[in-house]
């Protein structure tokens, strides 16, 4: 375990998520010249979310590649770079546009180690802004974690605090396996937090308990975990104790933290904005059933996106697609009262 123990000993700075991505990536590029970034508009524009702002000036166009408009190429070239001992951090402009690269990521990045008996490895990172709540309609709102977490050989992480972004991005770059690093775009400017100046890592595959409580366990990640913390705060006033667990990583999945909590509360709810059917919640619920059935006092509950192909553009419908704090509050109270 390489995380900081207790309170950070060095200076900290308050920053938002996109700033944390930016600063961490910049510092890693300064530290190791094998780290490079590639993607659409990452150079002169500094990325559409400005995550690589100023990189072109500092590191030059050989390490900050504005690629042709082709995601398959971005992933494929990153794999090649990684095979030759570089540490590429590829950017998908939006998670919604990763699908042209699906073949490269699933058929190649995830399988090269296995099919070469460990002779080759693909230590690359693919960053992608995901999630809804920004009025982005069908193609700027999607959740893609379940597609990729299903694939052995890939790691899929979903940090959503500035502290975790830094620690997990460094860890992802150092990781010798391909890591899909998903950044919830609604949190980019919404969520702020203190980030220590010193270099530290947060291991991939360790959940964080955000609030402690004895009555209900709620497992979430991304924007939804922030909503859950807010709903928990409301219920706290009513004397209902909600333990909010931020998974932070889909694979590896930290079931120890989840099970410890569920054994205490006896009630579990899983929240994500991705479609419920065959989503992350299904896996977590199944493992709870397998490992902690005797500790449960209520059926496991999932609150998730509806079974429709994508986020509608209509503001009213987008609002109804995404679970929000009001809906979580209702669902949590109902479970607590079960």
């Amino acid at each position, binding site marked *: 375990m390489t995380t900081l123990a207790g309170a950070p000993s060095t200076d900290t700075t308050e920053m938002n998520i996109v700033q944390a991505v930016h600063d961490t990536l910049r510092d890693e590029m300064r530290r190791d010249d094998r780290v490079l970034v590639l993607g*659409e*508009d990452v150079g002169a524009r500094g990325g559409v979310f400005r995550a690589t702002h100023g990189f072109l000036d500092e590191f030059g166009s050989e390490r900050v590649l504005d690629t042709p408009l082709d995601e398959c*190429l971005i992933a494929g070239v990153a794999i090649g770079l990684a095979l030759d001992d570089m540490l590429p951090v590829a950017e998908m402009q939006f998670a919604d546009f990763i699908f042209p690269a699906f073949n490269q990521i699933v058929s190649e990045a995830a399988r090269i180690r296995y099919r070469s008996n460990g002779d080759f490895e693909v230590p690359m990172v693919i960053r992608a802004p995901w999630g809804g709540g920004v009025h982005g309609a069908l193609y700027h709102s999607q959740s893609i974690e379940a597609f990729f977490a299903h694939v052995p050989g890939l790691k899929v992480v979903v940090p959503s605090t500035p502290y975790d972004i830094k*620690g997990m991005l460094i860890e992802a770059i150092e990781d010798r396996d391909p890591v899909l690093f998903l950044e919830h775009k609604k949190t980019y400017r919404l969520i702020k937090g203190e980030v220590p100046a010193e270099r530290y890592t947060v291991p991939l595959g360790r959940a964080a308990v955000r609030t402690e*409580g004895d009555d209900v366990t709620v497992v979430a990640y991304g924007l939804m975990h922030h909503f859950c913390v807010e709903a928990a705060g409301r219920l706290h006033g009513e004397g209902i104790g909600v333990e909010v667990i931020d998974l932070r990583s889909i694979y590896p999945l930290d079931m120890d933290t989840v099970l410890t909590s569920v054994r205490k509360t006896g009630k579990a709810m899983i929240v994500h904005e991705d479609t419920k059917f065959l989503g992350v919640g299904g896996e977590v619920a199944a493992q709870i059933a397998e490992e902690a059935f005797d500790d449960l006092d209520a059926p496991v509950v999932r609150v998730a996106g509806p*079974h429709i192909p994508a986020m509608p553009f*209509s*503001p009213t419908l987008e609002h*109804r697609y995404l679970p929000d704090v009001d809906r979580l509050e209702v669902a949590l109270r109902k479970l607590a009262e079960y």
Partner: protein
Amino acid sequence: MNELLRFIGDGDAIPDKPVPDGLDGKDLLEIYRWLVVLRTFDERAVALQRQGRLGTYALYWGEEATQSGPMYACRDTDWVFPTYRQSSIGALRGVSPATVLAWWRGYGGTHGFYNAREHRVAPICVPIATHLPHAVGLAYAAKLRRDPIAALAWFGEGASSEGDFHEAMNFASVWKVPAVFFCVNNQWAISTPFSKQTATATIVAKAAAYNMPATLVDGFDPIACWKATKDALERARGGGGPTLIEASCYRIGAHGTADDPKLYRDDADAARWRALEPVGRTAGYLTRLGVLDDTKRSAIAEEAKRLIADAVAEMESMDMPGREVLFDYVYARGRPDSFAEGLDELAAVRRPPEVQPLRPQAPPSTGDADAPKGLK
């Protein structure tokens, strides 16, 4: 093959050429009127977005010739496949401009989308280049049915980097499919300049690899865009196979209303290209020909203004869809399995009309060492 096709001069160094066969004065005025309608729509949409009455909007200021010319070359039976950059092109074919505006606002249709099937306008693809194989497939179906129509698809030069483009070109040429690939080379894909997109000097150069005829045209000249498309559509409908057209122009405006080109390019370049923009240049050409005068010109402008003003009023009178439509149109028959449960869950919460911002709230204390400090 790679010589630039152009008819309209600039009244200065670039000379006028005679009007090509097939266009009379009435046609020229109609092509011009379409330019003006498109321009009026675009300027109004940008203004509405700035006022918060539309969502993010993809403007096309300066690219009107790449829409007016090719559309005028189509028969109503030909299918068109626009991108987000040609969102209002259906208005040239009977789609109500109010429908298009409502689409940008998220109020239109059932889910806030618009569908112009009856006008043979394909759904707008936001994922880049995905519609090109669709146009080819649809055209192949027409060929199988001996239906003498063609499919015309627009795309940007950036889209030519996606596999879908090459795959569509390849199939279309092997199977001699009645499709026309219309590339609007506006030199920019968001911030990526043409020189970073491809090492070829033109997009038409790529046609050779697929053994496909190609034409390079002045993308600010609607007559040139018309002529190239007209010839290509005729060849396609007659069994001669596909054509690649490259309309060379410049993206004078931003990529979209959320973009700021100052971050990555010199404004002075766009200002220089502005001199070639199609509305004024076409007006000059038609005036020199004696087809257009000031009276006609202002009548066309007034009519376009009225058309779009009416469309805005109509859009603003539309209601937002209710939540019960959320599960419609997922499958051909029936609603998704989780429909009833999903609707119950939604109904359980009385909610304000808009997405609530996340309110900062101090969470109860946490024992976790990794917990973010000072999370807001």
